[in-house]
């Protein structure tokens, strides 16, 4: 990605005192929130349900508007630029279109010329290793493959920011791990900025260069932690003491935020061999 390397790039995503409530008298979903994210960061967002993780992504994508505060994405108000893509919890593929046409859907909405559309579609399908399934229909694919198509559809936009809302949550663990590794490999080549909402501490630690732990009622940032696992990360990374230590540490922090567990002693964390 063409970022000037000599100067520090400006924050790509910036939130200043952003709040969100649903309805004029509804409870606050997000307390005043300040956050800055730099280009190329891979930020994982963890937190109990009701902490506003998904709301945060919807605000950034422009699908929802903040109740107050300032929000800028690539220097624009959310929803103003073409450089953001969203990967939903479900693959949300259109079942009547084959894989190739699904990947092209968002490009078609932008009325992109066919040649450019084809180029991007083929590149995105190659990235997720589904080039040979281009003419298959979603119902013929496995859950993991469908999520890959969903990812390819987002990548075909050639985004500078990728918002991922628990994309691998419904997959079995092996598929989930493998997709995580592939996602990281693509990220290391393309260096888009990622905001990845997940419930899995292990997944967050493996993927992220930074983890935000949100607390609920109202949603706020409880911890903002850099994850300094050495790269390139691979399946072996999951076996290193450092990784296991981080997972244990973050699980404990997350558990401490849960009011039902706050009083009791921290449960025994997995110990490194």
């Amino acid at each position, binding site marked *: 990605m063409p970022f000037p390397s000599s100067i520090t790039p400006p924050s790509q995503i910036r939130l200043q005192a952003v709040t969100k409530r649903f309805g004029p008298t509804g409870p606050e979903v997000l307390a005043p929130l300040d956050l800055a994210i730099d280009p190329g960061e891979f930020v994982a967002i963890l937190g109990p349900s009701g902490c506003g993780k998904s709301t945060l992504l919807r605000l950034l994508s422009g699908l929802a508007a903040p109740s107050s505060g300032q929000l800028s994405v690539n220097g624009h108000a959310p929803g103003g630029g073409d450089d953001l893509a969203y990967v*939903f919890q479900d693959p949300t593929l259109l*079942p009547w279109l084959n894989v190739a046409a699904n990947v092209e859907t*968002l490009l078609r909405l932008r009325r992109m010329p066919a040649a450019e559309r084809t180029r991007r579609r083929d590149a995105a399908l190659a990235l997720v290793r589904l080039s040979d399934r281009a003419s298959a229909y979603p119902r013929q694919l496995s859950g993991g493959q469908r999520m890959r198509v969903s990812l390819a559809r987002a990548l075909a936009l050639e985004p500078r920011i990728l918002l991922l809302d628990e994309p691998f949550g419904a997959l079995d663990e092996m598929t989930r791990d493998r997709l995580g590794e592939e996602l990281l490999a693509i990220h290391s080549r393309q260096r888009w900025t990622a905001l990845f909402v997940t419930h899995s501490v292990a997944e967050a630690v493996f993927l992220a260069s930074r983890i935000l732990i949100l607390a609920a009622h109202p949603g706020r940032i409880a911890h903002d932690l850099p994850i300094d696992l050495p790269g390139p990360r691979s399946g072996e990374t999951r076996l290193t003491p450092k990784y296991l230590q981080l997972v244990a540490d973050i699980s404990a922090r997350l558990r401490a935020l849960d009011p039902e567990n706050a009083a009791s002693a921290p449960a025994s964390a997995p110990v490194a061999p």
Partner: protein
Amino acid sequence: MNSRLLRWCLPFVFAALLLLGWQLLHASLPASRRFLLPDLARIFSAFRDHGPALLSATRYTALTALTGFGLAATLSVAASLLLASSSLIRVTLYPYLMALQMVPIIIIAPILILWVGPGAPSVVIVTFLISFFPLVVNTTQGLLSVERAQVDLFRMGRASRWQELLLLRAPAALPYFFTGLRISAILAPIGALTADYLVGTTTGGKSGLGITALLFSARNEIPALYATALLGCALGFALVAAVSALAWLTLHHWHDSYSASEK
């Protein structure tokens, strides 16, 4: 493969049993009551005896049924687009749409005769009234039953209303449209036949199966009456088969309910 063959055969096996049962029942009745279940041979010879009349009546009923059905299918798309466009329009118009289906045809019939006179136009209007409702209800439902996340996807892609309609809502509504089409395909021929009975004419040889049935029943030609009923059924089956084939061609590659036979 064997079970598939069996599935094809079963309705025919059942038909054979039914005919056999009919014939046995016919033979077991006292001679004076046998006209209630006429000899199958006499029903088949009724086809021959009244061949030209039955053929022309079938053609007339098929034509009026298709016209009313086609009209209903076309206008239902427009009506569904209107209804799906706003919930205010929906709550305003829906009771009237139901009323259209609920007013008994027996009451509409004399009014239609007053308005447009007896004959084909009245028959087509009755057929339309009968087959319109299931189409509109199903298609509107389809246009509205798009997943929230898919709408979000389109909103985020800054799709125009037209793009959302053509690329998302219309294809999503297709299975629902075909469900409505199948129900209406059953109703339309029966509707056209009944309408012919109520608002048809006998002038100029332009009458359908309804008038034909009326005549046969007046002349007490029971076997010919059964032959007329069989032709009405055949029309219904033909239309349903055509619609099912169209639905399969359109949907089998993506919609689960149409692709079971592939496995």
